[in-house]
């Protein structure tokens, strides 16, 4: 049900995810986080989701890491101080809540249809139409592009506007577009 390669990549994803939390120092954590993104991208590629893997590798592993490192270089490390330990009761309650959520999600995962199952509910709705008619109607053999840029172009326009809004918000909060003396 799960190939050895997928299993290996999943172990690496979980291990790097745990390492991000345990590494001392922000810079180290960011670098390990980049590795986490990269293994996630490899896992997506192994599942056949190449467009998603490409995006994860370019955004998650590359650009995000560079942005984090850039910010870490600019802020004063001393102002952050040593991380405070939460009260014991709070830590125990968090652990219990996490265990409960993990159990519920694990139970749900067991009930999911196998990957690639043509009888899965998600594969029986509009997917057959896109698969059968997509290349002929849109001229795009890559069905991901056919959906994103043609059938669902309206949603993609919204997503592009969301990205523009995020960039604008970032620039406005940091005063990037204003007079130089007010830039952060």
């Amino acid at each position, binding site marked *: 049900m799960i190939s050895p390669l997928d299993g290996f990549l999943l172990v690496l994803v979980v291990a790097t995810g745990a390492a991000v939390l345990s590494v001392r120092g922000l810079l180290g954590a960011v670098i390990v986080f980049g590795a986490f993104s990269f293994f996630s991208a490899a896992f997506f590629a192994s599942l056949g989701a*190449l*467009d998603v*893997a*490409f*995006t994860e590798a*370019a*955004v998650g592993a*590359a*650009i995000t890491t*560079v*942005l984090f490192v*850039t*910010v870490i*270089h*600019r802020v004063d490390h001393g102002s952050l101080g040593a991380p405070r330990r939460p009260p014991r009761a709070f830590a125990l309650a968090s652990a219990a809540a996490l265990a409960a959520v993990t159990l519920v999600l694990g139970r749900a995962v067991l009930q999911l249809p196998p990957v690639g199952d043509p009888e899965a509910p998600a594969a029986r709705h509009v997917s057959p139409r896109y698969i059968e008619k997509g*290349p*002929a*109607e*849109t*001229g*795009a*053999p*890559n069905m*991901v*592009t*056919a959906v*994103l*840029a*043609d059938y669902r*172009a*309206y949603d*993609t*326009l919204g997503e*592009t*506007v969301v*990205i*523009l809004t*995020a*960039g*604008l918000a*970032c*620039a406005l909060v*940091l005063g*990037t*577009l204003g007079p*130089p003396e007010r*830039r*952060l």
Partner: protein
Amino acid sequence: MRRPLDSPVLDTASRLLTPLIITFAAYVVAHGHLSPGGGFQGGILLAAVLILVRLVRQDRTWGLSPRAALMTACAGVALYAATGFAALAFGGRFLDYGVLPLPLESAAIRAAGSLTIEIGVGLGVMGVMALIFEALAGPLGDA
């Protein structure tokens, strides 16, 4: 980030990589119909080139200024929306490129329409990523 990286290794590596990444980015945008990729990934690659050269050369005069980056991003989104309104103007529905009067088969017209919006997405993503980098990096090398 406070002092220039005066390294011939980084300088040479970035000089070698830059044309390759730009070529690959153009391929990813233009070939998104046939292979994995598209405007989003291509835009990220173009932004990566801008960020790479800015980091290595520490030169504020090179690349996109924050204002130019914002203009690029807005131009990309405007190109996307304009494609939608063009379809509306020729009697179709919003973003229904099939009605655009191009001398091509219907599937090819729709492919041309979606390539146009992919270019819009690519410009938009490149501009936004460059803008966010400029915002976070601040006055590089000035301090």
